[in-house]
Each structure stands twice: as structure tokens, then as C-alpha cells.
């Protein structure tokens, strides 16, 4: 007789009884959640998984979907159907690759110890300095996991309590979140340099993947107005105080400000129906134009530059955002508990186009692509994650239902590409084979405002912004947009970080 042991990774759930529990818990919680909702339907805004999307939109789709439940059971790190998952489950196909990759980086074998992974996730949440409400919930979740996996409780007191090694990572964390183009091989060298606190390359790659993932996820969370989770069962003494109250009034506040400030903004109230028609029209025209119209190369370059420049004014045009950075943050963040994870709260996104003195060259997408270069590097140092990310990027880029609002059988490739490339454009990544004039044609100003906010200052996203673009479109389509923005951001961050690592290697 031979003894055969199942591979370690397959047995982490420790036999059948433990294996069953997450599912049963989920079922219980889920039914409870539903009951909860029915009892208190009266409160609008904050019920349901998202503050932006009416509850029924999400829940309806959800209850039907057995697949989602299966996925959650299988991969969800929280072991429950949290709000993010609920909103994402509008796109089940994508949800699968998302959960799979997230599960892999948090739970499956990788170079970093489990508590470190959760700690990095906690660090990330807090880089979005103004991360106030939603963030707190996510922190709580990871705090739980962190402690459960044997993390040292003291670290949760703030960055000054963690080992120097993790502290060193914060530099990259900050840069990656706000100005990824500034990451150079010197940063990498500093981290991997032999010494007591050095990072090995596989560890660093794992950390970078985690960082990029959670930065991008923050964009999604804010962009879709994900509500904080209310679950009294999660508590361990590290729960941030008065999260819920704080967030309710906060959201309300934001909206008020926004309402007041946006009245003067320049997008007129066009009839939303004609808006959609106009967009479709433009897409069609572009498609036809391509054949004959031919812009000169100089023209193309200027278009990219123009888009880049314009992205600069998109947001600062708003009165709300013309607050000086420091004021804004002093008011809101320092008081928050989250700030103990932030070393330098003043550090925020800075426009790629505005950097001024040192003119960094544009990142040529063709010179360092995910498919050719990024993948190989990631997969070499942190096996298998490359395939998962690859699948996820591919999935989000190709995801389509061939619908646009009420219209069916529409080829949305162009629109999706415009969204994806516009995000990359804001991070200074240029595609030689893309005509940035298209962005201008396809993405209306309010959408640009939204994109810019979601990718660069996600915490400032408001319901008003979310509502103001593409008014005819379904919520699920807007969530689709958010997914695109999120993945585009993640890829941009990864490309910069991996390019720096590659340069360090050569």
C-alpha cells in the first residue's frame, strides 16, 4: 500500500467539517442580510451594497445567480458575500477571475507570509489618505485576517510599530498609488539591497502585485460607492470607532457640497436620450472615418499631449476640488483613525502632465507591454499569478454584452478602448497605435471628470459625479466602466513597478 498526501494547498481547509462552514455561514448571513434590508427599506442612500446604485438593481441580479454564490464560497477571502462582491456580481464572468486572483494573492502559496499580505492590504487602504468610511470596513476585514493568521497585534497601532522592512515598503506604496511614474530602479535597489531589512525579489513582486491590486480596488470601491459593511460579528477590539455614523453623514455632506459646487460646471443639461444617440452617432462616424481620414503623426502626438494636459484641468475646474491639498487633508484625515497608517498624508496624486521641471519621458506602451514583458517577469518571480492577472486583464478588456443602454448589438470595443487608454494616458502611458482624438469624441466631459476622480482621487467620488455621466446607461454598465478603470489603473501601476524591477535586473 502506498500513502499519498494531497498537495498542501488543497488541504488548507482541513477536512470536510471545516470546509463546509464558510458556506453555511454565508447562507445564514445572507438570509439575515436580506431580512435586515426588508426591515429597514425606508432609509435610502445607504441601504444595499452601493450608495450609488439602487439596491434592487444589485440584489435582483444577485439572488438569481447561483454562480456567484458558488464563487463566493470558493474564493471569497472574507467567506461571505460582501458588498464589493455583490456589486461585481453584475458581471459574473469577471467576478470569477477577480476573486480567483485575489484569493491567490492572499491565501495561496506565495513568497510573503500571510499576515504580511494582510498588513500590506491594510497599508494600501490607508494610502488613499482621505479613505474614511468604506476604507474602515475593509481595514477591519483585513485586520481580522491579519490577527487570525498570526499577525502581531501591536503593528496595528501604526506604521511606527512595524518592522523596518515593512516600513520601507511604504515609499513604493505611496508612489505607486499616486505617482507611479516616479518609481525608478533606485527605489527597487534600495529595497532589495542586502541588509537586515532587505526584500527578496519574489517578495517584492508579491508585495507590488498586492499593492496595485488594492490601490485599484479602492478606485472601484469609491467609484461604485460601495457601502461599508455592517456586521457586528466582525469585532476584535480594533474596530474603528463610530465608523458607521461617521460615514453616513459624510456621504451626505459630500453630496451637499457637490450639489452646490457643480451647478456652475459647464456640462449643460442635455436631454439624456439625445446624449446617448449622439454618442452612438459619434462612434459610428469614427468607425467610418478611420478608413479615409488620416491624421499626421505630429497631429497624433499633439492629441495625446492635449488629452494629457486636458486631464489636468478636468478636475481642477471644479470648485470643490480647488481646495488646496493640505487644507483638505488636514480637515478630514488627521482626525481619522486610519491616519496612523499614513506617514505622509500630504502626499497625493500629482498630475502626470504637470510635473514641471524634470520632464519624464512618456511611457511608450509598446516598449514595455504587459503581455510581452510584465507577464514574464511576474510569473518568473511569483509563479502562477501572471496567468491569473493575464486572464483578468483579458477578461475585463474583452468583456462585452454588445449593448449600450437600450441599444443592442453594438460593438463597444472602441468605447472600452477609449476608457482603458484614457486611464493610461493620465498615468503617462501612450499607445502609438491609438488616436487620442477618439477619447475626446467618445468621452464626454462629465465622464472624464468621473474617470479622473475615480482613478486619481477615488475618495472624492460622489454620487453626483456618478449620476452625471451617461444618464441613459444601466447601472451594470456603469459598474462595467468601473471595472475597466480599476483594471487599467492596476495595469498601469504594475507596468511602472515591473519596468523598474526589470531595469534593476539588467
Amino acid at each position, binding site marked *: *500500500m502506498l500513502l499519498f498526501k494531497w*498537495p*498542501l494547498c488543497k*488541504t488548507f481547509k482541513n477536512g*470536510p467539517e471545516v470546509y463546509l462552514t464558510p458556506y453555511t455561514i454565508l447562507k445564514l448571513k445572507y438570509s439575515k442580510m436580506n431580512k435586515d434590508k426588508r426591515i429597514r427599506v425606508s432609509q435610502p442612500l445607504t441601504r444595499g451594497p452601493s450608495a450609488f446604485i439602487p439596491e434592487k438593481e444589485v440584489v435582483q441580479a444577485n439572488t438569481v445567480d447561483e454562480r456567484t454564490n458558488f464563487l463566493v464560497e470558493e474564493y471569497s477571502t472574507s467567506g461571505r458575500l460582501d458588498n464589493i462582491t455583490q456589486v461585481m456580481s453584475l458581471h459574473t464572468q469577471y467576478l470569477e477571475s477577480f476573486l480567483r486572483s485575489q484569493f491567490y494573492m492572499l491565501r495561496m502559496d506565495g513568497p510573503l507570509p500571510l499576515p504580511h499580505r494582510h498588513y500590506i492590504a491594510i497599508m494600501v487602504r490607508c494610502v488613499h489618505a482621505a479613505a474614511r468610511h468604506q476604507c474602515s470596513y475593509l481595514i477591519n476585514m483585513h485586520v481580522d485576517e491579519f490577527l487570525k493568521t498570526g499577525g502581531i497585534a501591536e503593528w496595528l497601532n501604526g506604521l511606527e510599530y512595524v518592522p523596518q522592512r515593512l516600513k520601507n515598503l511604504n515609499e513604493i506604496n505611496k508612489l505607486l498609488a499616486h505617482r507611479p511614474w516616479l518609481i525608478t530602479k533606485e527605489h527597487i535597489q534600495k529595497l532589495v539591497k542586502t541588509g537586515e531589512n532587505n526584500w527578496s525579489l519574489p517578495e517584492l513582486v508579491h508585495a507590488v502585485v498586492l499593492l496595485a491590486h488594492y490601490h485599484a480596488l479602492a478606485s472601484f470601491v469609491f467609484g461604485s460607492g460601495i457601502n461599508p459593511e455592517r456586521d457586528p460579528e466582525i469585532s476584535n477590539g480594533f474596530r474603528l470607532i463610530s465608523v458607521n455614523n461617521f460615514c453616513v453623514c459624510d456621504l451626505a455632506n459630500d453630496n451637499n457640497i457637490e450639489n452646490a459646487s457643480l451647478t456652475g460646471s459647464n456640462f449643460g443639461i442635455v436631454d439624456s436620450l439625445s446624449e446617448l444617440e449622439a454618442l452612438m452617432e459619434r462612434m459610428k462616424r469614427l468607425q467610418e472615418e478611420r478608413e479615409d481620414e488620416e491624421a499626421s503623426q505630429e497631429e497624433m502626438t499633439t492629441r495625446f499631449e492635449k488629452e494629457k494636459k486636458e486631464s489636468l484641468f478636468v478636475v481642477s475646474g471644479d470648485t470643490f476640488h480647488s481646495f488646496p491639498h493640505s487644507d483638505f487633508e488636514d480637515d478630514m484625515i488627521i482626525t481619522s483613525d486610519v491616519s496612523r497608517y499614513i506617514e505622509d498624508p500630504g502626499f497625493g496624486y500629482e498630475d502626470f502632465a504637470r510635473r514641471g521641471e524634470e520632464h519624464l519621458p512618456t511611457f511608450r506602451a509598446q516598449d514595455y507591454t504587459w*503581455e510581452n514583458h510584465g507577464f514574464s517577469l511576474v510569473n518568473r518571480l511569483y509563479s502562477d499569478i501572471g496567468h491569473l492577472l493575464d486572464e483578468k486583464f483579458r477578461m475585463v478588456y474583452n468583456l462585452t454584452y454588445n449593448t449600450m443602454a437600450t441599444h443592442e448589438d453594438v460593438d463597444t470595443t472602441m468605447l472600452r478602448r477609449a476608457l482603458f487608454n484614457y486611464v493610461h494616458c493620465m498615468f503617462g502611458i501612450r499607445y*502609438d497605435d491609438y488616436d487620442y482624438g477618439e477619447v475626446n469624441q467618445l468621452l464626454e466631459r462629465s465622464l472624464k471628470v468621473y474617470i479622473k476622480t475615480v482613478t486619481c482621487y477615488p475618495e472624492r467620488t460622489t454620487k453626483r459625479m456618478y449620476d452625471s455621466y451617461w444618464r441613459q446607461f444601466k447601472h451594470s454598465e456603469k459598474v462595467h466602466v468601473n471595472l475597466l478603470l480599476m483594471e487599467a489603473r492596476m495595469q498601469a501601476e504594475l507596468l511602472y513597478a515591473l519596468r523598474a524591477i526589470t531595469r534593476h535586473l*539588467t
Partner: protein
Amino acid sequence: MEKMSRVTTALGGSTLTGRTMHCHLDAPANAISVCRDAAQVVVAGRSIFKIYAIEEEQFVEKLNLRVGRKPSLNLSCADVVWHQMDENLLATAATNGVVVTWNLGRPSRNKQDQLFTEHKRTVNKVCFHPTEAHVLLSGSQDGFMKCFDLRRKDSVSTFSGQSESVRDVQFSIRDYFTFASTFENGNVQLWDIRRPDRCERMFTAHNGPVFCCDWHPEDRGWLATGGRDKMVKVWDMTTHRAKEVHCVQTIASVARVKWRPECRHHLATCSMMVDHNIYVWDVRRPFVPAAMFEEHRDVTTGIAWRHPHDPSFLLSGSKDSTLCQHLFRDASQPVERANPEGLCYGLFGDLAFAAKESLVATESGRKPYTGDRRHPIFFKRKLDPAEPFSGLASSALSVFEMEPGSSSMSWFVDTAERYALAGRPLAELCDHNAKVARDLGRNQVAQTWTMLRIIYCSPGLVPTTNLNHSVGKGSSCGLPLMNSFNLKDMAPGLGSETRLDRSKGDARSDTVLLDSSATLITNEDNEETEGSDVPADYLLGDVEGEDDELYLLDPEHAHSEEPDYVLPQEAFPLRHEIVDTPPGPEHLQDKADSPHVSGNEADAASLVPVDSSFSLISVSHALYDSRLPPDFFSALVCDMLRFYAEQGDVQMAVSVLIVLGERVRKDIDEQTQEHWYTSYIDLLQRFCLWNVSNQVVKLSTSRAISCLNQASTTLHVNCSHCKRPMSSRGWVCDRCHHCASMCAVCHHVVKGLFVWCQGCSHGGHLQHIMKWLESSSHCPAGCGHLCEYS
């Protein structure tokens, strides 16, 4: 010279000459292509587009095709190709999706000929028809391939791959109408140029993008493909289904592949990331490249053989902005550097050893390891299958068989398990380890630990009890020389208290004797060690490593303070050896067996330890009194570690290294440390001491080592029904929805330990099967097999 002449005839009169050389370009190259006459090469990149003449000694820039004031994206080339029929015709693929043709015959400075802007995305590849003058093919990121007739303004036909981006297109050299295209999703398609509606054939060649392909110049059916999955595959396309005939596994994703002219089985590859070298592989020997060119400092982006009939010149362009000509005879041949010896352990400790025959012949005279009760049980020679590699013509394989019961390694396992390596103060660690070693009868090792403790821990804390075992005994792996003079089996198992009590009385008298005895013994040492291959001071050094050094120091200090303290320490063990032990039996070169120990115990108890312990204490005090910093010894300790490692006791070396940590680490070079660590870890794993090995990995400070347990430990399993990999869970297959491993007793899925019968391959939960087979001898599945559980 002989080769050269052959080349001359093959090329019809024109001789190709040259040397390995390189020239600096102004910018990174993306692709290169050679002119038909083999005298010019074109280099294209994002911001470079130049033609160089290849001269005997150097590259000479001939023409810069980037003209115009403003840089245009049309000139940002992803690929370039030179027509093989017309030396004035070139085509480039631009990153913005434009295909440009160039006519060098144009009189103006701008040689640009035609511009095709039909592709919407980056064009990855352009390819001229090998025999037709006007046919050009392009493959683009947008998933389309277009065929252009250069006499017309637009494309003649468009081929849709119906999938993602096209990475490469290549006209077949032999089939006039056929071309192959490779895709980002891993597919390869075969097209007939006359039938744009659908492809002739399609198959999945790689997992992930297929970056390149190349038709064999002679063998009409062969197509080589290279992909991101780090493989180069050679397909036979003549059969009904594309058949994989060869597969080469490289170390990085394959960016380009080019068959070597005139060498049927050779192909050159370069990689897209990480690896900068160009390899030439013999596809029949897929493990070691036949040749390797290491000139580039960044990834190689383009390779081309200079002449279609000359196998010795290879040109390459790289991201490091250089253009190189490589001569095959200057290539480094990894085969030559490869270690032609192989060594492997069998299940029961047999050792197989393969080496070049010549090597074995010379060394068998020296009888390297056969001395220790192992002997070759068979000896086999075998000729390698006719292969082009030289120097590997034949090798010999010897197998050494383990004699049952000989040289048991239980001490190794015990030691590994019981040693404490971290988590306590150094003194405790040393004590603990010394005790472990002592318990296992390895007194020399025990003593080393004790000495380390004395050296590195503050003197105030040294209790006398630790010093009982200053008397060394040859360890099981001891080298013969040691045995010759200090092998004595004294007092390994004595309680320290009793000896201490006695020591009070004897101490004084003993110290008096010191001087004379010391000199006597040192003389004796020298005599005995003469002619040995280990330096004499090692003999002392390894027993009581540091004292030797101290001893040598003394003359310089002119016996200033405590001359007598120093000497006795050496003297005692040695003296007692001489006095107490009959010379004959003790000088056996074997390790001390337990009978010896017990035999000597009585004597030892009465005499030896007493004295030595006392003297040692005094020494230790003396050391610190004279303010010798622990650093003083580090060189010696390092020597000692090296000595242990040399001896084969790498366990000791690594353990001490870990325990002492920073104190000695800096004095031993990283590579040596790494070598020790890997050896030790290898040994530990051979003995299934996974926990210990992991602990060692964790405690190591060497970067290469600590990376070891960051690698993936996932093991993918295949479904027993459909033979496909099971991705999500180990016990149920997503594809065929079968549970892969059912328990034959309870009919539930087995998720933990699965035990099965090798006769009928039925099995189940370990507990269930055990229980079942207690009551029945038949297989629980009812197959009638008489299963056995042992």
C-alpha cells in the same frame, strides 16, 4: 580555413570573412534584417533606422533612413525586413499600425516609397514573399493579416485570425502559397494566400502568446515556434495533424527563432525578458544549448544569419543599442563547461556515479572513496548516441552499493532534530548543542560547542560544569590524523558533579606537571603528523580550536602572566592519551564505538576530566583577563568551520554558522556559506527532515537560500478520469465532474491522506482501509484482489 573554403564554394565565389565585432547604435534596436548580398544589415527601432555595411573589421554606417525634421511615428519601427530578391526593397512595420516600404534606388534623400495605413493597431511583423517580388504580408495587433501587392495602393486581401493579435507571419519557403501566422492566444494558423476566407489549418502550439515562428529552410514540413511559455517547438506540418517533433525548453520567453543555415537541426533563439544571451540549440539535444553568445547587456531583440548558406555568421541587435556580429567559432559552448559528472543516491543509499571515462580511469588508481566499505558493484560503459558534441563520446557509470548496516546516519538525524539553532541566548544554545553531541557520543563536536561558548560568552557566566569534556574523541567522521594522536575515548558519559568534586583535590598537583608534559606532547604531535596532508595546527585546532592559537601566542608574550594556564589545556588530554591508553587499539582509524567508551570510562573518571576541567577554566579566565576580544578568534573559528565542512560534517558548519550568526558570518564569503547551506539542506531533505530544513532555510541570512522557501510549493494533479489538470480543487475534476479519489469503503471523497493498493489501485481513507483490511483480505471495492497492508 577548411571551413572558409567550403563557404566560398557554397556562396558561389564570394567569400564571407569577418570577426566577432560590435558597433554602438544611437538607440535600442527592435529588429534587424540582412540584405541578400550578406554585406549590409538594416537596423530598426523606435528611434533608429539605419543601414550598416558589414566590413571585415567593423560595421560602417551607410545610410540613415530617418530623414525629415520631425520624428514621425511611421518611423517607429517594430519590425523590418529586407527583400531577399531585390536589394533595394525594404519594408517596416510601425508601432502605430503603418506599413512602410522603402526603395533604396530612389535618388532623393527620402527613400520612403509606399505607406499602407490599413491596420488599426501596431503591426508586429512584416514578411516578403521569398520568391515573388511584389508581395508583402503583415500581421498586426488588431488580429488581421494583410497581403499587399506593392504595385497597388491597397491591400490585396485581408485575413482575419478570428482571435487576438497576430504576433508573427512567415511565408513558407517551399510552398508558394502557404504562410503561417502565430497568435497571442497560443494558436498557429496556416493560410493559403489565395483563400482569405478561412485558414487551412489551426492548432494550439503554446500556452500563452506565440511570439515567433520560422520555416525550416530545407525541410519543407518543419516549422519552429517560440512562445512566452519558454518553449521552442518544432512542428512537422506535412502530416494530417501538426505533430510536435522536437521541443526545447529555454529559461525565458522566446522572442525570436531562426533556423541555422546548413545545419539541419540547429536553430538560434533569443529571449524577450531577463535573459540577454543568444542560444543556438540542437533540437535533438534540448537541454544544453550547442552554442551561446553572451555579448549583449540587455535583451536581444533581433537575430539574423548573415547569409542563407553560411552557418558561421550571426548578426544581432539589442535593446542595449548595439549591433553585433557573432562568429560561431567564438561562441561559448556550455557543453564544455557543463559538469560531465553525475552523482545520485539510490533509495537504499546506493550511490551511482557517472563520469567521463578518461577521468574515471585515472582516478580509479587513487580509489577516492571506495575505502569506506563501499565498492562498485557494476561498471558500465556506454557510447553516447551519435551526437555532434565532442568530448562526450563516452562515459562510465559506477554504482557503489551500501553494505547493509554499515555507516548508519542516525547520528545525523538525531543531531539535526535535537540541535537548537535559535531562540535562546548563545550560551544556552551552545550548551544545549554540546549536550546533544555528547549524548550521541560525538565528543569532539561537543567540545567544539563548549569552546565556542567559552569564546563568545562573557566569562562570568561560564560554569565549570561545561568544561568537563575538554577531552576530545574522534567523531564518527573524524579524519585519521586526529585519531592518531588524540583519539581517546574518555569520559563521555560521566556526570559532571562527581568529577568536579574530585577535581578539587587533584587540581594543584596536576598544574605542576604542565610544562614538561606540554612540550613532550607537542613533539609527539609533530612526529605523528608528519607526512599528512592536513596542516598540523588543524589537529589541535579542531579539537580545541582556539587554544592552539593561544598556545602559539604565548612565546611572544614571554609567558608574562599565565603561561601555565595555557599549556595545560593542551597538555592534559594529550598526556592522558599517552599515559592512559595503550597505543595499539586506539590508533585505529575507525570511529569510536561504544565498547571503547565503556572500557575507558573507569580510568577517565578517576583522572582525566578532573584536570582538564580545571585547566580549562583557568584558561577561559585568562583569556578575558588579557582582554582578547572574541573577534580575535573569528579567523580560527572560520577555519574550524571550513575544516568541518571539508570533512563532510557540513551539519556542524551550518549549525555553528547559524548559532554564531553575525559573529562569524562576515568572515566567510557568501558563496561558501551558500554552498554549505545548500548541501546541508539537501542532506536534511534526503533524510525527510523537512521541518529542520525549513528552519535552516528560515534562519539563513544568505539571500539565495532564504528565497528557497518562497518558491511555489504547489503541486498540480491530473484527474484520473479525463487526465486533465484539476485546477480548483484536488479532489473533484471541473471538466468531467468526477471525484478523482473516492474511498472504496465509505464512498466519500478523500481529501487528506489517500492510501491505495498497488495491485488493484483501489484505495481510500487511511483509517478506513486499515480497518477494512483487519477484517477482510479482499479489496473493499469488490474487485477480488487480495490487498495487503503493510
